Structures are given as structure tokens and as C-alpha cells.
């Protein structure tokens, strides 16, 4: 009996001590909520990020790469030349976005989709990662003696990302590229690589980003592993991404498989991406 009294005193002592009314009702607010802003833009540097246009948002992106810096001041570190790609993409809902783009490199048109299957959440029953599938169809339209099927390249990527904290996010990208036409017999039609990318925020609106793709299987002798280092600046409806990279093309089969630049001769490319969103 004494134990009961002591116990109940302890129990109710807790109740008396409550000075916040909110504690009087059971807290069931512990539901899981989605994580926002794993990356600022839909690209990390060259690589696709887990981000996609928000529902009913049309996104216009310009991806501009100057020429090689190797000639130095003579052509102002490559600024006399440019390879440019631009695209439009639209967020159908929280999971699906579709887009189309065009690059001046080989006059390549492309159609692409990003579909998010899982979204990282926090709270009860939280999901530790986000997963999306990126697919693209590329078509060269440069005047050349080629059959239509030979002009096509297919890209499939799984994007698996995690925002570890407010500053640091990491993403891995198993990538499969199929080229209908290869230039020499030594080159393969099917190429597999493993991409990794990340960002570290410097302030609320700026971050340092990187990405690279490791080849899986053999490559031709001229192959160079691609990489990019970038700096993101976000200003409301715009995101500016400044970068140095060793790949000049900014569509998948180019920046994953056809990087050419070498660090030694400063044979690298300066570039920038600009994202502008429109609310429809």
C-alpha cells in the first residue's frame, strides 16, 4: 500500500509539474516529413542530381562550357569557344518530371525523364535515402552519312542520394549507356560506370559541389575519367553553377564517357549552368 502511494505520488507529481499546456495532450505530431533540398539544382556539376522540377514548375536550364583553358591568355582560357546545351523540363507531380534539350555538340537533341521512387524522410518510420531513375534518349542530327538508328544513344541511371545534414549531401549513380554506333571495333556498345557526387554548403545559399564517374570494365586507350568541381549560388528563382571540368559536353554519353581534358596541361573547361524556374 505504501508503495502504491509513493508510486502514485510520483505519477501525479509529474502531472503537477507540467507548466506547458501542450504536454497535457498526447503528442502524435511525430509523423515522417520529407527532406527538402538535397541539392540546389537538378545537376550536381555535370551529373544529374536527385532534384527535379517541383510540381507545376517549368524549369529552363542553360549549360555552357567554354573551350579548353590550355591555350591560356591567347583565347582567354577558352572563352572564345563554347559548347552550349539548353533544356526545358516540367514537374508533372512529386514523382515524375519530363524534359527535352539540345546541345550544340554534334547537334544533339535529347528527351529525358526523371522518376523518383523514394523520398528521404525524417520522423517516425523514416526513409534514409532518396532514389530516382533517370533515362535519356540522345539523337545526333549533325550532317553525316549515318542511318537513323546509328544516331541514337540511350542513358539509364539510378540516382541514390542522402542528405546527411543541412550542409552535406552525397549521391551515387550506377550508370548504363548504350551507343548504337561506335567509332572503332575496340569500343563497346554497352558501357557501365559508377558515379559519385556530393555537395558541401558554405552558406545558406552557396555550396561547393563535385562529381565523377568511375568506369566499370575496359575502355579504349583514349578514355579519361570525367570529373567536375563546381560552386553553386542560389538567388530565389535562379541557381548559378560555376565549374571547372574535364568534359566539354553536358549530356550523359559525353560527360560520362567522352571526357578528354587532362589536369597536367590545364586542358580543362570552365563552364556554368543557369537554372531559371517558372511557376505555371
Amino acid at each position, binding site marked *: 500500500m505504501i508503495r502504491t502511494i509513493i508510486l502514485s505520488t510520483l505519477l501525479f507529481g509529474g502531472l503537477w509539474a507540467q507548466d506547458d499546456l501542450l504536454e497535457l*495532450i498526447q503528442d502524435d*505530431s511525430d509523423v515522417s516529413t520529407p527532406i527538402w533540398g538535397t541539392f540546389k539544382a537538378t545537376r550536381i556539376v555535370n551529373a544529374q542530381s536527385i532534384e527535379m522540377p*517541383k510540381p507545376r514548375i517549368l524549369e529552363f536550364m542553360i549549360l555552357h562550357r567554354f573551350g579548353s583553358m590550355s591555350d591560356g591568355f591567347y583565347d582567354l582560357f577558352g572563352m572564345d569557344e563554347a559548347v552550349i546545351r539548353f533544356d526545358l523540363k516540367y514537374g508533372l507531380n512529386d514523382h515524375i518530371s519530363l524534359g527535352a534539350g539540345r546541345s550544340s555538340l554534334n547537334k544533339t537533341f535529347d528527351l529525358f525523364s526523371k522518376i523518383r521512387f523514394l523520398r528521404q524522410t525524417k520522423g517516425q518510420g523514416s526513409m534514409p535515402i532518396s532514389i530516382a531513375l533517370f533515362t535519356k534518349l540522345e539523337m545526333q542530327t549533325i550532317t553525316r552519312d549515318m542511318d537513323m538508328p546509328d544516331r541514337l544513344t540511350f542513358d539509364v541511371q539510378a540516382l541514390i542520394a542522402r542528405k546527411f545534414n543541412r550542409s552535406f549531401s552525397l549521391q551515387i549513380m550506377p550508370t548504363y549507356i548504350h551507343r548504337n554506333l561506335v567509332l572503332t571495333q575496340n569500343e563497346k556498345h554497352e558501357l557501365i560506370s559508377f558515379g559519385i557526387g556530393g555537395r558541401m554548403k558554405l552558406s*545558406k545559399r552557396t555550396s561547393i559541389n563535385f562529381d565523377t564517374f568511375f568506369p566499370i570494365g575496359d575502355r579504349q586507350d583514349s578514355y579519361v575519367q570525367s570529373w567536375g568541381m563546381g560552386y553553386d549560388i542560389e538567388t530565389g528563382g535562379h541557381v548559378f553553377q560555376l565549374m571547372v571540368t574535364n568534359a566539354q559536353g553536358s549530356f550523359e554519353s559525353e560527360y560520362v564517357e567522352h571526357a578528354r581534358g587532362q589536369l597536367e596541361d590545364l586542358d580543362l573547361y570552365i563552364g556554368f549552368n543557369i537554372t531559371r524556374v517558372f*511557376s505555371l
Partner: protein
Amino acid sequence: MKKNIIICLLILAPLFARNIYFTRSGKVSFFSSTPIEDIKAENEQVTCVLDLDKGEVSFRIPILGFRFRNGLMQEHFNENYMESDIHPNASFKGKINDWHEIDLTNKVRSIALEGTMTIHGVSKVISEKGNISIDNGNISGDANFQIKVADYDVKIPKILRENIAKVIDVDIQLVLKKK
């Protein structure tokens, strides 16, 4: 043993029972208007508790619960302005002035509230006006007031100063049920 505790609880319960009204689905919306753009967000996950004996009232507003029509605004709101990973909730804790002179009926009558508002981790003593009424055992409350963004250390970068109002209109609508 278990039985004893339950008996104890039953005997003592009336002594501790407080006349509590509450909701977990109160509505708060805010509105920022500038010549460049209007920004509006709604939140229907507001928890509010009212102690009918003392006229004390507490709010908890989960920042992630604010829904914008434009998803990018929602992201920036959480990431850049409210920093909801560090400050997940806004709250208010206070009391209704002259509570014991207020005759709660189904006729809407105005009240004055006083207490501490905490937004973005910054607490400020405020006093605002609102309305209250009771109908079918449900207490309805609403309030309409303004918040100065700078009071709560929410920084707007220079480039966006024309897009976001310095003073935000806030609207609260609540229906409280007895606990």
C-alpha cells in the same frame, strides 16, 4: 500492484482533471504582398490547447506543415528563411486577458491575448486581439495580426528585398474540442 495504481488513479483523477480544450488541426495562413509577387502559405497541423479554468493558451505550429502553391518557395522557406531543421516549430504561450470576466457564449466576442511568441528560435512578448465563441461544446477562435520579419531574425537577402514583405499578415482559425 497494477490494480492498486488504477484504483488510485480513479480516486484521484477528478482532483487533477483540468478543463482542457484542444485541437491538432488548427489552421494558420500567412500572406506576404509586394508589387513583385504575392506569397501565401497554409498550415493545417496547428496544435492549440486552452485551459478553460485559467484562460491559458498554448500553440505549436510545425514549420514543415506550411504548404505553398510553389514548391520551390516551400523549399526556400524551410531551407533559407525559417531553417526548420534547427527550429522545427513556432510556438505561442500566453493567456487571455480578463478571462474570468469573459462570458463564453455562441456570440462571437473579442478578446486580447498576451504572451510569448517564438519563431525561428527568437522569443518575443506580444499582445494581439482575437475572437472567441462556443457552439455545441466546441470553442471557435480566430485571430488576425501582423508579424515583422526582422523581429525574428529572419534575414532576407538584398536581391529579394523587393519580393518579400517586411510585415507579414497572419490568420489563425481554430476549433477546439474538449479533452
